[in-house]
């Protein structure tokens, strides 16, 4: 990455180790982070959803040549809403559909909200990767 992420986007916490960087940001700054990474020529590698017990976490992994930059956003249990990033990164669709099905995260504005892996008749109210 040519420019510093922390200088361009308000960051709560940043860690660097080898080729990996992790940036914790608030949901309000997600748009700014995505625009910055788009300008830097990043490719969305995947999205990880995680039940961190006290809240939910969404981790966006971006690749720039050998480097991996991970953006971490926290979501409250009672309002697990996050906007879709398919407008900036088209290939986010399948990964966001995974978030919907396996962690019960509401991805707002997603063009196709069918859960990716779960069968259509899946009725269990608890998503499979939630801890409770």
């Amino acid at each position: 990455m040519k420019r510093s992420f922390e200088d361009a986007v308000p960051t709560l916490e940043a860690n660097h180790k080898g080729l990996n960087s992790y940036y914790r940001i608030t949901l309000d700054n997600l748009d700014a982070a995505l625009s910055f990474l788009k300008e830097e020529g990043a490719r969305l590698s995947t999205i990880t959803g995680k039940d961190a017990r006290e809240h939910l976490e969404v981790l966006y992994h971006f690749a720039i040549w050998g480097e991996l930059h991970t953006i971490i956003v926290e979501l409250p249990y009672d309002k697990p809403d996050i906007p879709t990033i398919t407008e900036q990164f088209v290939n986010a669709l399948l990964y966001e559909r995974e978030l919907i099905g396996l962690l019960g995260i509401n991805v707002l504005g997603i063009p196709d909200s069918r859960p990716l892996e779960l069968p259509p008749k899946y009725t269990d109210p608890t998503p499979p990767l939630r801890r409770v």
Partner: protein
Amino acid sequence: MADVNERGFANLKVPIGPSHPALEEPARFLFEVEGEKVVNVDYEIGYNHRSIERLCQERPFSKVVYLVERICGICSHTHPLNHVERVEDIADIEVPERAKYIRTIYAELERIHSHMLWAGIAGEEIGYHTLFMYTWREREKVMDLFEMLSGNRIMHGCNRIGGVKWNIAEEQAKSAMSVLTYLDTAADKITKAVLKDSNIAERGKGVGSLSREDAVRLGAVGPNARASGVPEDTRVMCKYAAYGDFDLEPQTAKDGDVVAQALVRLAEIKQSIWLTKELFANLPEGPIQVEYDEIPPGRSVGRTEAPRGELIHYTETNGTRFFERIKIRSPTLANIPSYVPKFLGCQIADIPIIAASIDPCFSCTDRMTVIKDGKRKIVSARELKTGRI
């Protein structure tokens, strides 16, 4: 009722799959066709869904290595390789050089047999069964080589946290070198058979094309992206295992069609044979594993180049014997969006070869929770052993 096209006819919808949709794995495609031409496509995956990520969080460290090895029968080395590298990164475990070389040897042999498998299947999809027989015969030599090195053809059980389990004796290295020399000649013959054949050129040229712009936009990875001219190869970019010791060039082509896919994979077979010989010739002396005390809390995300492209593992530990989270993104999932531009405008007869051209692997793609009768079910070790799930 189906939509009516501009000529007043309803487009037909042709479902293909989920059983054997031109592949021996389950996935469902729904093609909307106008005459013989595909005008729309939808896909559905998840038929091979197995609970791996959740199970990884409920098994102690030592057992998870074997579990991730069973995600996929073809990538049975690159999954555990990525997994152990993540744990070693978290715990700052310095792996001995010899272990890194042995890991890389297995990874490259895996690439050779996987690409040969693909070439055979691609030949079969276009009715060229001789190519299938020929490549699979040579692939058997690699499987025998695996059996000689690890005792197993598919599940090698090679990786462990801190190194590898199986050492390579001098006699084994000698035998392997002679097999690799044979394979080098065989790879030349296969390449010649594919590239000089006018039938393959006619069936593959311009079929299932993917532009460089689309490959970048849709996040394509591995040989699928390289066939469209995107020079991204994780072995070159990340230099994990022993790849930092060798100069590798990403093998690319321009057109992104079936012929370009074949060009890239055949070149990679040759490259991998060369690299494996170098690895055997320069195998460092020394131990093959180091001991470790405990795994501290931490996180690591990293990539390896599976035969089908970039494989990414995200691993998080919490200081206990169990993982906090393991996330696996297989290369096929990243390559699925590129099916859409590949299929649009193609003929129905070309669907099988286009479906096979990205070398999809749905075992890797559909992992995680087992769903039975609409309910979540955690699979016990006994059930896994007996198969009564």
